[in-house]
């Protein structure tokens, strides 16, 4: 039944979010969700699709769960009491209104991204419960095994239950810290998809798409500037996807990319979001990084890019969140604005401090600058260092190509 398929895709996560609240337990809610859809498969073709499918699914799922608990009560008396309690706490009719449901979706997101859960468990749980990915899909995306992912999810659910992590949207005073945790999970998922940390494929589109979908949902539910900033940044980076790799899967750097391949629709959406985030005057790291990506997106080519403003944005970002990686990115912008010599001094200073000594991109950036300065011997050594640190096949090939260019 096609209708059912479409309803499953559109509503299953919403129904789950509400069932978790009504039943107070993830596993019980998941089972109830499946039972509700199983009942729909059986009854809808016969009786027709109900006027409000979502409400039908929620109340059917809830009844099935209570029923299930009653049956199990034969073996475990405490379940009988629980079933009684759930039955008496009948949900008010407006429980499945659009507003109520959207609140449940936020509750689900904040619970899955609770900082008391281990970071990798937050990611796995969010992809499982909020995005509806299977354990196998998550394992595949993170290059790990399904049992590992399953174990993380089981542990996280156990902690939610045992330590009593509440199913709620944080209070106003906690919101910004808690939203940071949520955005960090989304950013992690995006990054994993955008620049896979190991393996042969440069991009794993599914995860990036999932992160963008999550980002959209969060902006829709909670239009905070940093949420807008993160979504904008993801869209703007993702817009360059087809230009990032050459015909043989090799890496193409930003200044070499064919900008006609950039996704204009994603850029337009990203630029509008950056503008909204900047107008809030509450600038955070994501909005700043999105603003930098926006300047790249707006430029005809590398030379025509407003490098001065990019350096300025990196300065603000560094004041907000000092980090050697951001310093390195700022140095790359300095190279474009003031030339390779000035940038090389900055990178050498970072490395002399002992920071980023094992960071591949510090060495590849340094190698690039040395190459442009005609210091071939030093450039080859720096490329060599970057190659040994690189975990990605396309990147390694790119760097090796640079070395052979210098040896020729």
């Amino acid at each position, binding site marked *: 039944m096609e209708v059912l398929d479409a309803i499953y895709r559109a509503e299953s996560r919403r129904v789950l979010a509400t069932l978790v609240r009504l039943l107070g337990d993830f596993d019980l809610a998941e089972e109830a969700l499946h039972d509700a859809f199983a009942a729909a498969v059986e009854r809808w073709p016969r009786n027709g699709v109900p006027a409000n499918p979502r409400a039908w699914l929620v109340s059917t799922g809830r009844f099935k769960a209570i029923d299930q608990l009653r049956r199990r009560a034969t073996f475990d008396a405490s379940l009988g*009491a629980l079933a009684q309690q759930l039955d008496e706490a009948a949900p008010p009719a407006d429980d499945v209104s659009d507003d109520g449901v959207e609140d449940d979706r936020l509750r689900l997101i904040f619970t899955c991204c*609770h900082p008391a859960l281990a970071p990798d468990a937050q990611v796995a749980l969010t992809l499982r419960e909020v995005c509806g990915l299977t354990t196998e899909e998550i394992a595949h995306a993170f290059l790990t095994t399904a049992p590992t992912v399953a174990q993380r999810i089981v542990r996280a659910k156990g902690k939610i239950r045992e330590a009593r992590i509440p199913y709620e949207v944080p209070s106003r005073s906690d919101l910004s810290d808690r939203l940071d945790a949520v955005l960090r999970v989304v950013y992690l998922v995006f990054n994993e998809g955008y620049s896979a940390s190991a393996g042969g494929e440069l991009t794993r589109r599914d995860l990036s798409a999932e992160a963008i979908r999550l980002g959209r949902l969060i902006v829709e539910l909670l239009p905070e500037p940093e949420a807008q900033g993160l979504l904008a940044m993801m869209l703007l980076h993702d817009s360059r996807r087809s230009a990032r790799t050459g015909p043989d899967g090799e890496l193409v750097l930003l200044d070499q990319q064919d900008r006609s391949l950039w996704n204009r629709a994603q850029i337009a959406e990203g630029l509008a979001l950056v503008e909204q985030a900047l107008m809030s005057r509450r600038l955070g790291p994501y909005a700043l990084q999105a603003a930098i990506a926006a300047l790249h997106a707006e430029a005809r080519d590398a030379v025509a890019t407003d490098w001065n403003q990019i350096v300025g944005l990196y300065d603000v970002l560094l004041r907000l969140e000092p980090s050697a990686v951001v310093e390195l990115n700022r140095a790359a912008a300095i190279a474009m604005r003031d030339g390779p010599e000035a940038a090389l001094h900055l990178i050498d200073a970072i490395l002399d401090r002992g920071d980023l000594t094992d960071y591949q991109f510090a060495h590849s950036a340094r190698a690039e600058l040395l190459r442009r300065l005609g210091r071939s011997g030093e450039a080859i050594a720096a490329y060599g260092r970057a190659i040994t640190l690189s975990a990605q096949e396309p990147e390694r090939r790119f760097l090796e190509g640079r070395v052979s260019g210098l040896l020729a």
Partner: protein
Amino acid sequence: MKYLCLIYSDESQWPKQPTSDADTMMAEYGAFTEGIKKSGQYIGGNRLQPTATASTVRIRNGKLSTTDGPFAETKEQLGGYYLIEAKDLNAAIQVAAKIPGARAGSIEVRPIAEVPAAVGVA
């Protein structure tokens, strides 16, 4: 729900602390304790003797082993605790964050395992 808030700090720093700082800290602890007594979240709390007095007891393969020192070997040691009542982990974390020691050290928040009560079916 009951939670145990364990206060970790670097105890080697304690003797080096100026008396005025120690007095301020004691006053802050006094105020915090009063605060959670008023809010009804206080169940108990104590300062602990330094870790030199600590022992860790384990049973391995049915045999009792007692070792000198605290459980974890980190640069911070367990220095005290509060046993509190909070409706959920978020509320417990809110209380723990107000413990003065949270600023220099860390607080371990542990839910207290509750003995399951026999539930009679009505």
